[in-house]
C-alpha cells in the first residue's frame, strides 16, 4: 500500500497525466485473478460444497446437509488427528525456527568457507520429499538400518519408528531437516537487509556480538520471523508425504495427522464427502492460524522496522 501511494504522490507531483494514471488499470490483474479463481477459489468452493454431500467418486454426489460436519465434531479420530497436527506443528516450529534463524544470520556474514557450507546446507531442499522419506525409512529400519548400530550409542531404541512418540518426532525431524534450508535462506535474506549503520553505531556504543544479535538483529528480523513462521505452520499443518511413506499413520493411528486422515478417508475409504469436510476444516484452521499470527505480530499494519531512520 505504502508503495503504491508514494508512487502516486510522485506521479501526481509531476502532473504527468490525468488523475487516474497513478494505478495500472484492473485489466492488468485479470490473468492473475482468472488463474487464482480457476485453481484456488472454484476448487475450494467445490470442496466446501462436497463437504455437505455423500460422494463415493463413482456416482453423483448426494447432498446430505450437515451430516459430515456433525460427524466431524464427534469423531474421536478427527480429534486425535487435529491434536497430532498441532503437536507436529509446534514441534516443527520449535525445532526449525532457532536453528534456521541462527544458520541464516551466520550465512549472512562474510566468514571464510561460508558460501561453500551454505551451498551444502541447501542440498536437502533440492531432494524430493519422497526420496528423503524413503532414505530415512531405510536408515531407520530396526533390523537392517544404521539406527541399529548407531542408535544405542546415543541411547536411542532402534525401534524408534515403532513407538508413538518416536514416530512423531522422527516425522518432525525429517520435515525439519528438509525445509530448514529454505527458512535459513529467508533469514539470510532478512539479515542482509539490516543496514550496517546500526551495527556500526552499536559498536561505537560498545555493544558486543550477543547484544548486537539480541538488540539489533532479532528485532530487525521481526517480520522475517513472522513470514517464516506462517510458512512453517501452514506447511506443517498440511504435512503429508513423509507420514505416508515413513509411518503410514502408525503405529496404530499415532501419527495420523489431519492431512493423512483426509487422504485415508478420501482415497482409501472413498468417503470423499467426509474427506472434503476434513479438508475444509484444515483450510479454516490454517487460515485462522496465519491470520492470528499476522495480527498479533504486528505484521499486518506494516509498521516499518526502520522507523526513524
Amino acid at each position: 500500500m505504502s508503495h503504491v501511494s508514494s508512487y502516486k504522490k510522485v506521479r501526481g507531483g509531476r502532473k504527468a497525466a490525468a488523475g487516474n494514471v497513478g494505478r495500472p488499470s484492473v485489466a492488468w490483474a485479470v490473468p492473475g485473478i482468472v488463474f487464482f479463481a480457476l485453481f484456488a477459489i472454484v476448487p475450494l468452493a467445490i470442496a466446501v460444497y462436497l463437504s455437505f454431500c455423500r460422494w463415493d467418486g463413482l456416482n453423483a454426489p448426494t447432498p446430505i446437509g450437515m451430516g459430515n460436519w456433525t460427524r466431524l465434531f464427534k469423531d474421536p479420530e478427527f480429534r486425535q488427528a487435529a491434536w497430532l497436527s498441532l503437536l507436529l506443528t509446534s514441534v516443527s516450529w520449535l525445532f526449525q525456527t532457532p536453528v534456521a534463524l541462527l544458520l541464516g544470520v551466520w550465512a549472512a556474514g562474510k566468514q571464510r568457507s561460508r558460501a561453500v557450507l551454505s551451498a551444502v546446507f541447501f542440498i536437502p531442499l533440492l531432494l524430493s520429499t519422497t526420496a528423503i522419506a524413503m532414505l530415512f525409512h531405510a536408515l531407520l529400519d530396526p533390523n537392517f538400518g544404521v539406527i541399529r548400530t548407531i542408535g544405542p550409542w546415543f541411547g536411542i531404541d532402534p525401534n524408534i519408528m515403532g513407538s508413538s512418540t518416536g514416530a512423531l518426532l522422527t516425522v518432525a525431524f525429517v520435515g525439519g531437516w528438509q525445509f530448514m534450508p529454505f527458512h535459513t535462506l529467508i533469514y539470510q535474506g532478512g539479515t542482509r537487509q539490516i543496514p550496517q549503520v546500526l551495527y556500526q553505531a552499536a559498536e561505537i556504543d560498545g555493544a558486543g556480538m550477543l547484544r548486537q544479535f539480541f538488540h539489533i538483529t532479532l528485532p530487525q528480523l521481526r517480520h522475517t520471523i513472522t513470514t517464516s513462521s506462517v510458512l512453517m505452520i501452514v506447511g506443517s499443518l498440511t504435512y503429508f508425504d513423509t507420514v505416508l511413506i515413513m509411518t503410514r499413520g502408525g503405529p496404530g493411528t499415532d501419527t495420523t495427522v489431519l492431512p493423512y486422515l483426509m487422504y485415508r478417508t478420501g482415497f482409501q475409504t472413498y468417503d470423499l464427502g467426509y474427506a472434503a469436510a476434513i479438508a475444509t476444516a484444515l483450510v479454516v484452521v490454517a487460515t485462522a492460524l496465519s491470520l492470528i499470527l499476522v495480527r498479533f505480530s504486528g505484521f499486518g499494519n506494516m509498521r516499518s522496522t526502520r522507523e526513524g531512520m
Partner: protein
Amino acid sequence: MGSGIFTQSTRAARWTAAGAAMVMAGVLAGCGSNGGSGGDGGTLTAYVYGDDAVKVQQAAVEEFNKTSKVKVKLIPVPGTEYVNKLRSAMGSPSAPDIFYNWGSGSIKPYRDAGQLVDLTSTVKNDATLKDGFLPSIIEAGSLDGKIYGVPMRGMQPVMLFYNKKLFAENKLEAPKTWEELQHAITTFKDKGITPFALGGQEKWPELMWLEYLLDRIGGPEVFNKIQSGDASAWGDPAVLKSAQTVKELVDGGAFGKNFNSVDYGSGAAPTLLSKGKAAMHLMGSWEYSTQLGKAPEFAKNDLAWANFPTVAGGVGDPANVVGNPTNYWSINSRTKHKDAAIAFLKTMASKSYAQALVDNGDVPTTSNAASMLSGSPNPQFAKDQYDMVQKAPSFTLSWDQALESGVATPLLTEISKLFAGKSTPEQFVAAMKAVK
C-alpha cells in the same frame, strides 16, 4: 453420468481436497495423463496391476491383436497406485474398457454404479470359459451369484513359509497344531531368533493373521456373514477369540519387539526370514518368487512352506485356505467394443496362456493346469500350492478385497491398533461392529 463439466469440476475439487498436500498433485497427474480414451478408434484399454507378471498379459495382448480388428492396449499401473487410479478413472470419461481386479468386494462399488458387464450368461453358455477354470475360483470372484470377472493370473494362497535349516537345527518340524506352534515359538525365542517375521508397518500382513485365526477358530462361515454386510457378525465370539489370540502372540513375543517398524514392501520382512533372523513368515504365495529374486540361494535350499496350523478348540477345517484365489478381468459396461472385449477374455482360458503363466512361476487357475506344473521353475512348490487350493473346502478371499473400502480401510486401521497394543481385543470388536 459422464458429463464432462462435472468430471472436470470434481477433479478440481479433489485438487482442493488435496489442498496443500503436495503428493496429491502426483496422484492427480497420474489420473489426468491416462492414455485410455474409452475405446475410440477400435481400441480397448486394459488396466493391469503393474508388476513382473505384466509380461504374460502383454504377450497375450500381442497375440490377440494379431487377429483382432479391435486392438487391446495394455496399461500397467504401478501396484501401490492401482486401486486409486482405477477408482479415479472409473469415475471419469476416460475409464478403461477392461480392468484387473480381485473380484467380490473390490468390484462391488462398480457393480452398484452399473459399470460392470454381467458375464454370467457368457460364461455359462461358453464351454471354453465354463469348463476352463476351477469352479471354486470363478465363484470366489462373483458377487451375489453373478459372474463379473474372468480369471487371468495365478493363485495366491497365504502359506506359512519357514526356514528349513533353522527348523532342522532346532529339531523341529513345521507346526501342524497350536501346541507345536507354541513350542516352536518358545524354542526360537530362547535362541534369540524371532519366531515370525512380520511387516507390521504395512497393515495387510497383519490382516493375514486374523484371517487365518478366524477361519481356524470359527470356520469360514463367520467371515461369510461379515462379508454379506452383517456388521453384527463381528460380535461372534470367534472374532474376539481371534483378536485375543493375536494379543497373546504379540505379548508373547511371537513377532519380536520391533515388528511395528518393519516394512514389507522394502523387503525388510522377507530378508529377516532369508537371513535366519526370523524362523517363519506368514505370507502370500508370492513370497516364493520374492525370495527367489532377493535371496536365490535361500529360496532354493532352505525355504519351505506349510499350511496354517490348527487352533485348539477351533472348528475350522485345517485344509481351508485364505488369500487371493486369483485376479480377474472385468469389462466396463460403457465399452464400445463389448464383443471384442469378451473375445479377449476368452483367450485367458487358452492352454498357451496358462503355459505362459506357468513359465513365469505362477500357478494358473485353469482346470488343465495340473498337468503343466512339472514345467514350472519350481515344480514342487507349484504342485503343493495347486494341491493346497484344489483340496481346500473353502478359499476365503483376503478381507481387504472381499469387503468394500468403506469397511476394509477402518478394518486395517483397527488391526494395526490391535497389533500395536493401542487397543484391546474387546475394543477391536466394538470398533468393527460400529463401522457402517
